[in-house]
């Protein structure tokens, strides 16, 4: 799409500012650094609004200190309004980001570096700022396992329990309906109903402090815009400033009436929520958009929408979700869906990240547009199936109306927007490590002298595959329990630290119950567990069953010797394991049913435990670097994988193992119990740009995606192969079985080609 001149200039400015900030996932994408606002490195500690707030008000309750510190950190940031922009507000520079995410106030230990206070005072201040620390988890681990076993377990890297910072989407809809003053009234109303004692009173007061802080911050922006307008000589820019001043002043208190006001208010909360996730933007903004189209607005509806998408782009929000179903089950696609996708297309960058929800009645034009974006080399948007996700959410107790309103957030997690805290995620669990324990009678892999898991028997003593599977299941049950317990300990830290306090007044359930966002306040509190190692484990078990127990082509002694030696001296056995046993991802029932069995075993097991916030633990699988990270810490396995190799990509097959084409791979994945994986279960699909190059081929791709969406698939991310992938495929063909290329008149796996043919294909890129 063509941006207006004004938005084109905003875009150019953003591009100039973005250059030094390559990694926007770091969410430190602020156009200012400490030096640029005249603060030297030594001042940073002294300037820290968090430490100062706690220091200056030693008698206030923690949550009040925290709320005031957050407000202070925002108000101390210089007010910056860029030329041409229509909505305003920048992220905080690094020196004020001692934020309170999950583990108390980040950087709180810097009080020990401050030479102006003595050690005792520093210690006291630190305790106040960090009422609970990571020791809370460690102590529980030691209590459960003893020091030596817990240490071995940590060194073995089976899991990471206790969670990441935790994404959620605030309730933008309720904010837009009420405005900030309306939110204050709501807070007062529920405080009146619920004030049970000092703690709840303090929490409601903290909510008021946050909401009022946002109003004050908007008022500061209004004043600055007015000042700039007064001194501006360019008539057009003068008008822009004046409009900003009026807009900010209005939404500082009132509920928005126009789209322009709505996007400024949404951006304000998003910023204070540290540009976490945006939820279903085409839904909660649609009423305002319709009105703007009908009645007109200060700036055009396209400019309003472009403005907020640009802000998200520059500041690295994690996800925008589009389309899907309305509460009544009918299709939710609207003009904003298309408009936002067209803006994304014109930006053509790794951000903003968008997800499109699809169901069997989604309009074909929507999928066509999505595929056009992929064909232009973008990996956004991701697509996700309402047909799989909604029934899965209902099964874990979500109200059907709410289930239809789900959103994708974070990287690829799922929740009900504005009313959930799903931990996001509570932990990552590597089931391949459990398999190693089953092979080694529960012995630690980093220190074989330590019996870290239950003694389930020596592998060479098992007479049948079922005996071995039982050993695997016992190990899995044992460590799932420890894992879930430790996840909850991690959540207790967050609860004690009032993590993500800004979300509390803006998440349905918190005000009503008088409970914070991270302590069971939201309506939905189910937990999310990321699963690593599925393909490696199921392919290994298939190979063990087939080659060791059924066909007895490899003795159990030889198998153990081979994996313990990382296949050194056992290349024949490794190739047999690799080539003579079917692999998940080829629509082969023998291999696929094992994957189904393993995933059911694990996801049914975690569902027996409840998150400390309330609600069951539910499965997820969308690994970023974890497949590589946990692979590094996993030994050789009977799927032919060497020690340290990656563990496969999210829910997909072992890299390169899917040799029967995309449809077979998708069929395999569709057999998995993906409805149980409503924490968010991603499949990465690689297509070459060539395959998306003509309208006829794009239609074929659309058919494959639609079939996946309506027949049990969940999420799919498409990557179009680039030259670097092909080059890597030449060196490591075993990792790239999924690269499909064209030769002559048909398609073929790149890795099946001779070197010459590969060179030929690659030469087409130059």
């Amino acid at each position, binding site marked *: 799409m063509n941006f207006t001149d004004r938005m084109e200039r905003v875009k150019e400015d953003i591009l100039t500012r973005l250059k030094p900030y390559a990694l926007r996932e770091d969410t430190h994408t602020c156009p200012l650094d400490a030096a640029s606002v005249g603060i030297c490195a030594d001042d940073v500690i002294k300037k820290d609004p968090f430490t100062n707030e706690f220091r200056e008000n030693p008698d206030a309750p923690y949550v009040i200190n925290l709320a005031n510190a957050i407000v202070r950190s925002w108000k101390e940031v210089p007010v910056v309004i860029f030329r041409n922009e229509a909505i305003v507000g920048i992220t905080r520079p690094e020196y004020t980001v001692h934020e309170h995410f999950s583990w108390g106030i980040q950087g709180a230990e810097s009080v020990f570096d401050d030479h102006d206070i003595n050690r005792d005072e520093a210690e006291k201040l630190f305790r106040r700022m960090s009422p609970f620390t990571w020791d809370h988890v460690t102590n529980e681990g030691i209590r459960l396992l003893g020091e030596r076993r817990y240490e071995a377990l940590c060194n073995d890297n089976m899991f990471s329990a206790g969670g990441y910072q935790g994404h959620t989407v605030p309730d933008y809809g309720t904010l837009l309906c009420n405005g900030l003053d309306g939110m204050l009234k709501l807070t007062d109303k529920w405080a009146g109903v619920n004030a049970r004692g000092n703690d709840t009173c303090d929490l409601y007061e903290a909510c008021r402090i946050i909401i009022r802080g946002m109003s004050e911050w908007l008022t500061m922006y209004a004043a600055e815009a007015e000042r700039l307008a007064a001194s501006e000589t360019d008539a057009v820019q003068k008008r822009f400033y004046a409009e900003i001043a009026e807009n900010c002043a209005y939404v500082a208190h009132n509920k928005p009436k126009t789209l322009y006001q709505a996007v400024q208010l949404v951006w304000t909360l998003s910023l204070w929520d540290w540009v976490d996730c945006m939820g279903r933007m085409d839904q909660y903004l649609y009423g305002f958009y319709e009105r703007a189209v009908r009645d007109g607005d200060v700036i055009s509806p396209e400019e309003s929408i472009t403005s907020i998408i640009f802000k998200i782009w520059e500041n690295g929000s994690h996800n925008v979700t589009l389309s899907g179903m309305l509460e009544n089950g009918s299709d939710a696609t609207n003009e904003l869906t298309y408009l936002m996708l067209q803006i994304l297309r014109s930006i053509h960058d790794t951000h903003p990240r968008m997800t499109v929800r699809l169901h069997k009645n989604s309009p074909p034009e929507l999928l066509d547009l999505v595929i056009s974006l992929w064909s232009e080399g973008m990996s956004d948007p991701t697509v996700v199936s309402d047909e799989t996700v909604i029934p899965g959410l209902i099964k874990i107790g979500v109200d059907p109306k709410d289930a239809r309103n789900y959103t994708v957030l974070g990287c690829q997690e799922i929740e009900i927007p504005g009313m959930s805290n799903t931990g996001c995620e509570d932990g990552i669990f590597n089931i391949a490590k459990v398999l190693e324990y089953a092979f080694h009678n529960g012995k630690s892999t980093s220190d074989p002298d330590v019996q870290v898991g239950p003694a389930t028997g020596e592998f060479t003593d098992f007479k049948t595959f079922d005996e071995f599977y039982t050993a695997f299941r016992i190990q899995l049950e044992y460590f799932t329990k420890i894992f879930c317990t430790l996840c909850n300990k991690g959540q207790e830290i967050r609860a004690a630290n009032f993590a993500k306090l800004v979300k509390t007044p803006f998440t349905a359930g918190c005000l009503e119950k008088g409970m914070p966002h991270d302590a069971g306040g939201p309506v939905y509190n189910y937990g999310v567990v990321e699963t690593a190692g599925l393909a490696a484990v199921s392919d290994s078990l298939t190979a063990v069953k087939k080659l060791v127990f059924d066909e007895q082509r490899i003795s159990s002694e030889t198998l153990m010797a081979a994996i313990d030696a990382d296949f050194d001296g056992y290349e024949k056995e490794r*190739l047999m394991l690799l080539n003579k046993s079917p692999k998940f991802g080829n629509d082969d029932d023998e291999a696929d049913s094992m994957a189904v069995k393993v995933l059911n075993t694990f996801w049914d097991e975690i569902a027996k435990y409840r998150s400390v916030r309330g609600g069951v633990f539910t499965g997820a699988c969308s690994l970023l670097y974890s497949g590589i990270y946990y692979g590094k810490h996993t030994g050789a396995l009977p799927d032919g994988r060497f020690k340290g190799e990656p563990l496969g990509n999210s829910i997909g097959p072992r890299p390169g193992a899917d040799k029967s084409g995309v449809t077979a791979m998708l069929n395999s994945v569709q057999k998995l119990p993906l409805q149980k994986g409503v924490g968010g279960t991603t499949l990465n699909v690689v297509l070459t740009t060539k395959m998306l190059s003509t309208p006829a081929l794009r239609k074929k791709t659309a*058919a*494959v995606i639609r079939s996946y969406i*309506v027949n049990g698939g969940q999420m799919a991310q498409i990557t179009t192969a680039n030259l670097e992938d092909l080059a890597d495929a030449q060196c490591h063909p075993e990792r790239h079985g999924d690269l499909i290329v064209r030769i*002559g*008149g048909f398609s073929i796996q790149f890795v099946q080609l001779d070197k010459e043919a590969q060179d030929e294909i690659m030469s087409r890129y130059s």
Partner: protein
Amino acid sequence: MRGIIFNIQRFSLFDGPGIRTVVFMKGCPLHCTWCHNPEGISPEPEIMYEPTMCIGCGECAGACAKGMHIFQGGMHGYMRKGCTACGSCAESCCSGALSLSGYYTDTEQVLDEVMKDAPVFAESGGGITLSGGEPFYQADFTTELAASAKARGISVCIETSGMADPRKLSEAAAYTDFFYYDYKVTGEEEHKRLCGASQKTILDNLSVLDDNGSRVTLTCPIVPGLNDCKEHMRAISHIARMHSCIRDIQLKPYHRLGLSKAKKLGTEPGYDTEPPEVETLEAFRDSIRSCSGKPCEIP
């Protein structure tokens, strides 16, 4: 009914409309010098051997009842002459150096595999494509596969050289939605020399498909140095104009994929040359479009 095939390839995008599953049938009456599927020529199972993949484990020597695999000084010797292609060496081979090309199967088994993609066929308008080899080398099996696929409601495409008994072709045409029909070289002598058989049946059979009201895509391999000449392009256009069954034309550029397979099969090496230039192909395409008045693509 039983027949012999050498591959079932799913997610094929260029062998007919939509997304298709291609069944490669073994056995072909022609011997085109540039053949890209040499494993499709013989109607019997064959052993393919790729020495560079052999790790010298010696399992095949133990597996072969005829002693056709020997190891001397770490070197693997395979004597194809006495080999019956029973496949036990391939079964024992872990590295994939030895593989069996071709296996007997039946209509039900093939269709069960093909139907796994039925939902994608429905979404994309795809279906089964019978290819080879030459599907009409096993004409009855081909007809039964086509009829069963039709009975299960999926579209049928047959890729043929046209070397078929006209009655069998007619019979199969009743169940076939699309033919991809090869026209390889122009001139009877040229055809005999390069493809190993007379072209008469092939040309006559196009009229059979005219009579059946079939939909045909004329597929023309373009092999530099053998048929990349204007006369051939004129002949393609002429044939396309003459036959009402021909809806469109596809030019299929030569590629070298068959060479390494011939080596693995131990058969005569195929014709080796550079693939045609894109500009040359586009010029051919344009001239065929204007002379034949029918669509012509380079897929």
